[in-house]
């Protein structure tokens, strides 16, 4: 340990790290009135979800509307979408670190913190989908029996938790260094940043492989699934971050430049068109070929034997994505913030439907024996889903609440000491 401590003297990490954590806890319980209001709302929604989940564990998953025919529903739909959101943050990391976009570099932590929150939601959605959450330890390598490498679900456990750890390390290290008033040491974070770029691609690829490797589900059994996942992830991720940046700038009074917003808008412009192209390509292949393996697609887009629960959902998604794509084509859409927010929101909800209900449910309708049993989520499922979202938004809000003052030098070891003295 021969570090120079220009600003702080030779304070050891054993002292400053607990102090850093303590300040983080203090910061996350302080704020203006609307911060308390927002956190109270999220806590209330989270508790509604926790209670609904507790009832589900006690009474069984019969409280959901899932059946042996449609055995995955709203939880796995949201899980899939969240993996995309987590991967989407990498669209800030790539310009910031690979192309040395300095203005993006200043706000890149937003994308990394979003990845953390999204992964927390992923883990939440998988947990609430388990019939026996008390046996989660069977999944821990070494303790349980980890069916690696043959089960894609074990790969997903590895890549999702790995991605969480990578982002926790990168953001935690940078914030801690900033807190100590020191320059971060490149060798302690740059390799992890580069690794996280490849890792972001892997989480979504592995999640797609989870589905597309199943021969018994023709709707998923397409090589286009992983690329489609990535394309739509690079729509929903930037869309969320653009809106988040605008909100943070407005309510937090944080100076965020226009350049990152422009860059992300430019990325979305392309990815949303690629995403739509892939949808068209998939739809053409299915319907031009015909035959019984397209029954799921027919169910999704037009209804099957009078069953059409998903038809309004999927066409809303197509309409939202198309309108968003057209709005984003406007050359200076980023100068017109309300329009940009509308485009981002439409794209975000559009992908949520397409990657969620639109992707998971049709694979089960009709069933593998071609029985048509429909599915719409129950009230319990909605409550639990809202609860997991509330948890994720809490994590994201608190992370920003801690990160922003430290990054804008309003919080540091020196100031903390001064205050304590």
């Amino acid at each position: 340990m021969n570090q120079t401590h220009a600003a702080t003297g030779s304070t050891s990490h054993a002292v400053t790290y607990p102090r850093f954590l303590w300040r983080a806890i203090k910061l996350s319980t302080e704020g203006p009135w609307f911060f308390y209001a927002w956190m109270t709302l999220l806590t209330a929604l989270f508790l509604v979800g926790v209670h609904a989940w507790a009832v589900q564990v006690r009474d069984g998953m019969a409280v959901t509307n899932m059946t042996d025919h449609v055995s995955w529903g709203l939880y796995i739909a949201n899980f899939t979408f969240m993996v995309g959101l987590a991967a989407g943050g990498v669209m800030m990391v790539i310009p910031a670190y690979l192309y040395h976009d300095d203005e993006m570099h200043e706000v890149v932590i937003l994308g990394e913190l979003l990845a953390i929150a999204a992964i927390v939601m992923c883990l939440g959605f998988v947990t609430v989908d388990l019939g026996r959450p008390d046996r989660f330890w069977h999944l821990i390598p070494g303790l349980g029996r980890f069916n690696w490498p043959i089960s894609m679900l074990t790969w997903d456990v590895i890549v999702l938790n790995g991605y969480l750890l990578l982002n926790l390390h990168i953001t935690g290290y940078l914030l801690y260094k900033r807190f100590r008033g020191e320059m971060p040491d490149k060798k302690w974070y740059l390799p992890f940043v580069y690794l996280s770029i490849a890792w972001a691609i892997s989480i979504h690829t592995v999640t797609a492989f989870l589905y597309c490797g199943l021969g018994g589900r023709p709707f998923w059994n397409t090589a286009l699934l992983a690329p489609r996942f990535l394309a739509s992830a690079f729509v929903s991720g930037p869309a969320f971050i653009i809106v988040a940046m605008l909100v943070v700038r407005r309510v937090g009074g944080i100076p965020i430049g226009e350049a990152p917003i422009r860059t992300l808008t430019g990325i979305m412009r392309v990815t949303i068109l690629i995403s739509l192209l892939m949808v068209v390509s998939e739809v053409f292949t299915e319907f031009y070929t015909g035959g019984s393996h397209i029954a799921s697609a027919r169910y999704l887009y037009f209804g099957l034997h009078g069953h059409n629960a998903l038809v309004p959902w999927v066409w809303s998604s197509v309409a939202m994505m198309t309108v968003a794509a057209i709005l984003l084509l406007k050359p200076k859409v980023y100068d017109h913030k309300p329009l940009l927010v509308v485009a981002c929101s439409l794209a975000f909800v559009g992908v949520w439907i397409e990657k969620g209900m639109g992707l998971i449910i049709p694979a089960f309708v009709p069933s593998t024996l071609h029985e048509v049993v429909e599915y719409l989520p129950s009230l319990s499922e909605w409550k639990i889903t809202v609860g997991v979202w509330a948890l994720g938004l809490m994590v994201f809000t608190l992370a920003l609440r801690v990160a922003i003052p430290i990054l804008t030098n309003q919080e540091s070891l020196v100031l903390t000491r001064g205050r304590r003295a």
Partner: protein
Amino acid sequence: MLQLPILGQVDRRTALKAAGAMLGAAAFAKAVAPIVEWASQETSADEFLQKHFKQLSGDELAQVIRRLEAETQEEYGAEVTISDVRPQPGVKFGYALNLSICIGCRKCAEACHQENNHDRASGNSYIRVLEMDQGSLDLESGTADYDHPVPQPDKFYMPVQCQQCDRPPCVNVCPVEATWKEDDGLVVVDYNWCIGCRYCEAACPYHARRFNWTKPEVPTAEINPNQGYLSNRIRPQGVVEKCTFCLHRTRAGRLPACLEACPTGARVFGNLLDPNSEISYVLRTKRVFVLKEELGTRPQFFYFFDT
């Protein structure tokens, strides 16, 4: 403007925060109360810590079985015997079904329901009987919820259950090895190891797996007391189950319940490795086919037409 002293302000803020935190903690305790209730009634430390079936020693397994028998006594009021019959060397089970004479009466599905201690309310069974249009083997033309006298003149009937695949996708996808293929070809589940993720249900191309959406309810008098650890013992809530060709019977030399219930003799069961068995005779002399052969799952359940 009235200005409160700084100290007073801090105190009020701290007090408010403390009150908020206490309120939150109380609400959280209230919210998770159902889990606490469930954990105290439906699980135990022994069950939580129970090892995977393949890691249990003989003594440990005997202890687990005693515990399960006691629980069945306590919760269902029935005295049952849970056995662990192992595969016999030189045996690989196969099943064949004669579509020419199946009349779609669903007696097999009913026998399965009773033999395997299925939940009564849901009417669960490992067998679904499809009523198919003459002239098509496309499952899309089939329906499982027909409700009229059988057989209908222009239809044929195809019962579908676990195909005990030689390359079972359900086994591959399980993240915790809670399901595996035994030496006699049967695909089984350790109900005390399954985490209930239902990935196997998504992977199975034959709709062979079932999930326990609730705790199964069976009246005491209707409980089949002859139970197997890996087959028909009453399953816990929240785990996946499946057809095991009634291994608690067939490994002891008896026939599956669905076969015994069939009034037309459409079902043929036996040892594929024994050239003199009836199943070997059928495979040798009839033109048999398997469902969804193109998926490469290699089912050990065969169909044939005999007329």
